[in-house]
């Protein structure tokens, strides 16, 4: 009986392969998007963890100086009883790029920092004596074959782009003899007094990278979840249809003696089987999605945050398991309602058409209440809460609330249309549309979400792009940007440029803690270049005069927001002294706090600042020639002398890659929504015959009916698109004014792009039209006998 029952149930799918394909496609697509995003996040997080745990930097306190620390200071501290280990970090140029070189002393390294597996066999001696031994990840090693570096050993615990050597070898390779960057403090070691110039910095719980990139991953997760939710609409439709069509089979099976429990169990088993098949396919597709998106994500993370993420994906068993789990869970959620109905199927009840259309008014009212509550909650979150979670909470409330509100709104709209309709046919059209709403509402909600996300994210990205481009034009006012290789060379270049350039402006910077957070400190010369162009968000009236005399400083927007700094607030500087804030400038694309002083003031504070970088002002039409001359005169590598256009192009490229992933997910979500609509329409078209047959019998042609059906679908899509506009704009506003501020520390003005909406609207109508095409065509090709049979069989 069980076998017979199962084969009877499964035979349905053989007879309707399209439906099976739809179900599997919906489920595997939803799983793919979700698990693809998860895979990207997992890969990136794993590499942050690796980066942060290099030398246990995530859990160990460290002693830092204002700048580099003398090795003798380390020895003196050891001899004073400090249990510390020296580290020298620097960038080591290799052909085509550079490595983060970390020099350590393996003898004093705290156990928490020892994650590199030192190779067996050759021991410590080659590691500590020239040429040394360099540990890198396999990926990094592959790119360094001919780089003339010390012998390489592979240590997979190291993040890409990082090389570990003995500290003595690091001093040699970086040409920084007798110098260290900082000291790691052993846990539980006795703390003693530190000499002036050195400070103890407690470990930061989460790594800087993890914190900085949190927003980015939250963003991806939110999109992955949205796509998954939209995908579930397809699954729901497909399962609903399959159950509906098999009602007679269910009744027959029950009548033949299959118990309700057994039938439900069989259906559950069938669903689990389908979920597993679709889940495996989905996870495999998700791997493909992740592998395709990861290079862009890696480029973004590296460009925006300096986080090195490998461009290749590791397969993690946990990720497979969660992917399958979410597929199964999603299927069960989507099928719960249908299973419940089967369980309660009255054995002898006639095969009535499904009562989707009779969704009670009360349920709709309840749903509307929840929707309004969610919208109010979203408003409350925006008003009261700040921060990333409040922002995403508000987004979720907004989207879900609007989606739940949609059926009631549409229903009201159709009722209005019905009241205003002239003629029987028009009235029937409105009434019939309204009648279908409950069956369509889920897919319409999916469409609304996809369209709104598209409008919102599109508006955010475009606003950002517009602001960013304008800001780059202001910020990159100089024609050429020069990086000398040595200070001597820089001095010669300055002499050389005296007669050839209009002005040469130093760009010196140092790194230090400002208000307890790592910050960049820049020196700025007093020049019209800055007075005319520098993008100030807030400024004291005499800002440039006070800057020039070293009486004030500028802070970037990120620092101002994080620390609540306003004009006139004093900022303490390393090494004593404080200056008031005279201006706040926008600083997009940079996650780190930044302060600008006059060049003199900077050099007084940090005398060891390397004087290598300069901006060169020259008439724009002479810039290229000057650059050419200069490269020839000093045998300067191209990357040491960049022109404005190249830097702008590079910055914009980083920007575009940042949002390439978002755009890709956006398109995929829209595609999934289109599929959901198609699945719903297929379901409905099969069930609507009893309603259409009488209208046909009264004289309306099939072609006319089909045309009305197409019109109805397009009308609904258009209405949904209209509803998606304000929702999308609200979404964009939350993204720009709340999420961006929390995530990056900057707030962007919002611009609207109606042209994009038109394009999107067209796309939505096209998707709806395509989705409706198959059912409509089927209706048009229906034989009169099929319609007549409705009267014979169902009524």
């Amino acid at each position, binding site marked *: 009986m069980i076998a017979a029952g199962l084969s009877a149930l499964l035979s349905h799918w053989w007879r309707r392969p399209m439906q099976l394909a739809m179900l599997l496609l919906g489920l595997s697509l939803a799983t793919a998007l979700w698990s693809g995003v998860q895979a990207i996040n997992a890969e990136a997080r794993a590499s942050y963890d690796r980066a942060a745990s290099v030398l246990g930097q995530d859990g160990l306190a460290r002693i830092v100086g204002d700048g580099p620390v003398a*090795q*003798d200071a380390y*020895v003196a501290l*050891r*001899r*004073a*009883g400090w*249990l510390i280990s020296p580290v020298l970090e620097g960038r080591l140029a290799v052909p085509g790029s550079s490595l983060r070189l970390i020099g350590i*002393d*393996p*003898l*004093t*390294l705290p*156990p928490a920092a*020892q994650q*590199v*597996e*030192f190779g*067996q066999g050759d*021991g*410590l*001696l080659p590691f*500590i*004596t*020239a040429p040394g031994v360099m540990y890198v990840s396999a990926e990094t090693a592959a790119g360094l074959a001919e780089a003339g570096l010390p012998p390489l050993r592979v240590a997979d615990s190291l993040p890409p782009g990082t090389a570990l050597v*003995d*500290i*003595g*070898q690091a*001093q040699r390779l970086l040409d920084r003899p007798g110098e260290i960057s900082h000291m790691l403090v052993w846990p*539980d*070691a*006795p703390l003693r007094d530190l000499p002036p110039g050195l400070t103890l910095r407690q470990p930061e719980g989460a790594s800087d990278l993890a914190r900085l990139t949190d927003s980015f991953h939250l963003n991806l997760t939110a999109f992955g979840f949205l796509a998954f939710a939209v995908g579930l609409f397809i699954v729901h439709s497909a399962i609903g249809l399959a159950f509906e069509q098999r009602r007679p089979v269910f009744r027959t099976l029950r009548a033949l003696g299959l118990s309700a429990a057994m039938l439900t169990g069989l259906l559950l088993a069938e669903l689990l089987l389908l979920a597993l098949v679709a889940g495996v396919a989905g996870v495999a597709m998700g791997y493909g999605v992740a592998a395709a998106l990861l290079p862009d994500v890696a480029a973004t993370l590296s460009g925006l945050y300096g986080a090195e993420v490998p461009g290749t994906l590791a397969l993690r068993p946990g990720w497979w398991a969660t992917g399958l789990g979410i597929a199964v869970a999603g299927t069960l959620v989507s099928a719960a309602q249908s299973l419940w109905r089967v369980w309660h199927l009255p054995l002898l009840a006639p095969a009535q058409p499904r009562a989707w259309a009779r969704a009670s008014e009360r349920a709709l009212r309840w749903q509307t209440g929840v929707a309004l509550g969610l919208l109010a909650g979203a408003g409350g979150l925006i008003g009261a809460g700040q921060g990333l979670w409040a922002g995403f909470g508000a987004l979720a409330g907004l989207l879900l609330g609007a989606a739940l509100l949609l059926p009631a709104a549409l229903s009201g709209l159709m009722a209005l249309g019905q009241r205003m309709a002239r003629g029987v046919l028009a009235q029937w059209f409105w009434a019939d549309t309204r009648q279908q709403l409950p069956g369509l509402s889920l897919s319409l909600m999916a469409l609304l979400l996809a369209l709104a996300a598209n409008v919102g994210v599109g508006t955010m990205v475009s606003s950002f792009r517009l602001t960013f481009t304008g800001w780059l034009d202001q910020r990159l006012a100089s024609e050429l940007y020069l990086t000398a290789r040595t200070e001597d060379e820089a001095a010669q270049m300055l002499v050389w440029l005296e007669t050839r350039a209009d002005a040469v402006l130093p760009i010196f910077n140092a790194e230090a803690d400002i208000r307890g957070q790592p910050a960049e400190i820049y020196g700025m010369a007093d020049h019209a270049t800055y007075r005319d162009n520098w993008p100030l968000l807030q400024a004291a009236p005499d800002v440039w005069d006070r800057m020039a005399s070293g009486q004030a400083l500028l802070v970037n927007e990120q620092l101002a927001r994080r620390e609540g700094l306003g004009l006139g607030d004093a900022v303490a500087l390393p090494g004593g002294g404080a200056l008031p804030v005279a201006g706040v400038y926008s600083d997009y694309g940079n996650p780190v706090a930044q302060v600008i002083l006059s060049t003199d003031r900077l050099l007084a504070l940090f005398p060891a600042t390397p004087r290598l970088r300069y901006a060169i002002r020259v008439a724009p039409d002479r810039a290229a020639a000057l650059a050419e001359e200069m490269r020839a005169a000093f045998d300067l590598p191209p990357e040491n002398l960049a022109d404005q256009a190249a830097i702008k192009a590079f910055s914009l490229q980083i920007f575009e890659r940042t949002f390439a992933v978002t755009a890709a997910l956006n398109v995929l979500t829209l595609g999934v929504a289109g599929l959901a609509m198609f699945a719903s329409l297929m379901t409905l078209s099969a069930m609507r015959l009893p309603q259409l047959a009488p209208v046909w019998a009264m004289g309306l042609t099939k072609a006319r009916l089909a045309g009305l059906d197409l019109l109805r679908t397009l009308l609904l899509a258009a209405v949904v698109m209209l509803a998606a506009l304000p929702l999308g704009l609200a979404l964009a506003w939350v993204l720009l004014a709340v999420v961006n501020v929390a995530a990056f520390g900057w707030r962007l003005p919002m611009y609207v792009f109606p042209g994009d909406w038109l394009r999107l609207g067209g796309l939505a109508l096209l998707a709806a039209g395509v989705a409706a095409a198959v059912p409509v065509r089927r209706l048009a090709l229906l034989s009169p006998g099929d319609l007549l049979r409705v009267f014979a069989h169902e009524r």
Partner: protein
Amino acid sequence: MNVKAFLAAVLLAAPAGAQGFAGLGADAQGFAVPQPGQPLAFPQDHGAHPEYRIEWWYLTATLTGPDGTDYGAQWTLFRSALAPEAGTGWESPQLWLGHAALTTPDAHHVAERLGRGGIGQAGVVAAPFEAWIDNWQMVSRAAGGADALDAIQVTASGTDFAYDLALQATGPLVAQGDQGYSVKSAAGQASYYYSQPFYQVTGSITDQGRVIPVTGKAWLDREWSSQPLAADQTGWDWFSLMFDDGARLMGFRLRDTGEGYTSATWIAADGTPRPMPPGALRVTPLREVPVAGRDVPVVWRVELPAMGLDVTTTPLNEQAWMDTLVPYWEGPITISGTHAGRGYLEMTGY
């Protein structure tokens, strides 16, 4: 292989497989090898000998507090060379390892320090004599003209203990073996070895924050070599016994797959050494206890018939386990039998 195991292996120099205890049975290629008939020279032999693979400055002290409670203190600086040269800066192949311990009747505190030679974090200079790693020191306080080791100040500290001891020698330096050439196996492996076993100690110990004044006796061993153990020797049981009548006995048994190899030097109260032939010393374990997951003999019968010696040694604390990179047992003992006194026992390779 993590760094800790890696260091344990290289620090005590094991280029090819684990041979003997802590790799001391490795071959001596490139390193100087002790030769008989070369008298020790001071003060330079108080300092380091970088051309030899391994060397130590090893002080053990039996102490007593004002209430009669016994304590023991250990201060050891090991030098281990990866290559037979002093070297400079970070590239110096000389590595240093410090062990400090404080033993009480119910606790055994241990601390360990590692450091690179060549940067000043650890080292030994012969004159004016100073041996140090981090803030642990052994510094000469001897008056001009006297041997540098006649008076020394020794300090060390760990997370839960510290000590600061002033040591004054009441007898001469004692050359072990044949004028300092100490044979370690029947096959002829040897080291240079001398001792100062006649220290009187005053000072203080800090046990978990409590400062206790102490007095007692101490014994300093100086030894360097490049291959002190034969390849089949797996560890040793080493005794430094300080008898109440002023005599001293240094004796050890090197364990191997067969009978083992014993050696001893009887030191009269005036410091005259009397080297004993191999096998003259008999040591017999009487009682084993579980220590750190292994069975370690902590009570011993020590016999030297030539001197009419037949004593039993019992530890102050049976659990005097040195939980260091290369773990071993080291702790103060009390002597009873034909002679009475106190001393130190070191057991490796268990």
